[in-house]
């Protein structure tokens, strides 16, 4: 199975990545090369094999819920490209329909 150009554009949208037509064409080629490479996993017998998500076997790690110092508002905002009145400023999410 190989990826087509329209799928590349759809994935780019899902990943919120700006991708030019030229980049998309190159990505199509490179991603298909990589996908071909990983096909060898089909050769492994996976009957009755469970997936491994956590390699050292830890499960539901808890810690005491104690109060600790955290960042101040100005520290948290220090790297923000746009801010206003102690908030992060973002572009409008919804289009103005009025």
């Amino acid at each position, binding site marked *: 199975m190989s*990826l087509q150009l329209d*799928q*590349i554009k759809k*994935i*780019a949208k*899902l*990943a*919120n*990545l*700006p*991708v030019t037509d030229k*980049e998309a064409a190159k*990505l199509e080629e*490179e*991603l298909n*090369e*990589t*996908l071909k*490479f*990983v*096909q*060898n*996993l089909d*050769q*492994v017998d*996976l009957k009755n*094999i*469970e*997936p*491994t*998500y*956590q*390699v*050292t076997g*830890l499960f539901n*790690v808890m*810690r005491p819920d104690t109060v600790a110092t955290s*960042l101040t508002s100005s*520290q*948290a905002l*220090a*790297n*923000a*490209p746009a801010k206003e009145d102690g908030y*992060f400023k*973002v572009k409008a999410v919804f289009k103005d329909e009025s």
Partner: protein
Amino acid sequence: MNLNDLSLKQTLEGLKGKKFSSQEVTQDCLTQIEAVEGSIKAFVTVLKDEALKQAKDADEQIAKGEKAALLGIPISMKDNFCTQGVRTTASSKVLDNFIPPYDATVVSKLKKSGIVILGKTNMDAWAHGSSTETSDYGTTKNPWNVSHLPGGSSGGSAASVAASETIASIGSETAGSIRQPAAWCGVVGLKPTYGRVSRYGVVAMASSLDSPGPLTKTVEDAALMLQVLAGQDLYDATTYPKEVPDYSKDLSKSIEGLRIGISDDYFDAITDPDVKLKIEDALKVYEKLGAKIKKIKLLDPKYSIAVYTILQRAEVSSNLARYDGIRYGAERDKLGSEAKRRIMLGTYVLSAGYYDEYYGKAQKVRTVIVENFKQAFQEVDVIICPTSPSTALKVGASADNPMFGEMADMLVEPSSIAGLAGINIPCGFDSKGLPVGLQIVGPQFSESLILNVAFKYEQETQWYKERPSFAKVSEGQAQK
């Protein structure tokens, strides 16, 4: 010999014995940085004034009889460890102006132990690569020959140690990013067991694999660094609640009767005949030291490359989703082509309809790899193989090769996928004078054992005494 050439252990002893001050060692490192950075480019940021001030503070504490573990030792750090108030870029322009408001856990541990930070080292952008060629801040050069690559992603850290710009360094490994540059630069690189060292505050690559660790001039130095780095961290739930042993205690223990496993598939992968010869020589040294070499059957590393490719890209796509240019950093158009390639493939293998075919399947093969190692470690104590199929490749080698890193790291990926501990140590030079790296892999939490096995070989062969000279650096420049 200048103070910057000293090992960590020698520096500690010299500081303790008042033979020299932290300011003198730090100054010698900074002088070396100034002298060689033009050709090596190991650093993204050099903290000259800050380092000298920290060294002065350390000297005052030493005078007061303070005894922190690494008091006054200048080190370099990969630029993906968040350092409070000091720009942290992960070598990507997305984070060009990112000043972290907090320290990574390993950074605060190192600060508490008294270290002096010389600067932040170059890496592949986001740690995506094995060459430093994907860095947005230029390619680091191999101190043994500047027309060759240092490896990566912790290439700046490895090069800074090899060029004696620092006493020691820290890097991070997802699959190969400590061991492979250590091999190509001829230094010691220890990748601890997954969960032995905290990932908190490290710019994330693939969270089920990422393991910070030391790059040093000697095995003993790696033990001293790991002692400070290791341990459970409440800010990283995947750190393991297991006591941290004294890593220096068993270094010189006899390895008489040690069972060393070797697997044919790992030797067949070698692309450079000199590498094979050097590893075979090393095995003879181990036999002389009383170890028994035993052939074992490990899974062909080609399956690990496939598993790693899928898992890593999937986790990358998830981890890099946070860079939206809203809270910090630039917008996503600043991501480089390698990051885009990885995010794209990762998004695809996690997307509806393809998850089972790729990500789900890779997680199952991961289980097969884990079990394969468990079985192997019933027959042998450690596994030895080359760290990299070749010595350092030429500058430019990674260009337009979407699988460059996976191939350069094929012999370290299986153990990373299984979360095992591994170490690279120098084991000689190829015909071009480039270092060859030997890899020792042990079960999870076997750091003491692999350090012991590495130390015995190092003391017997003393390759660590070979360092690239200024002459070699300038010869390299002349060749360019």
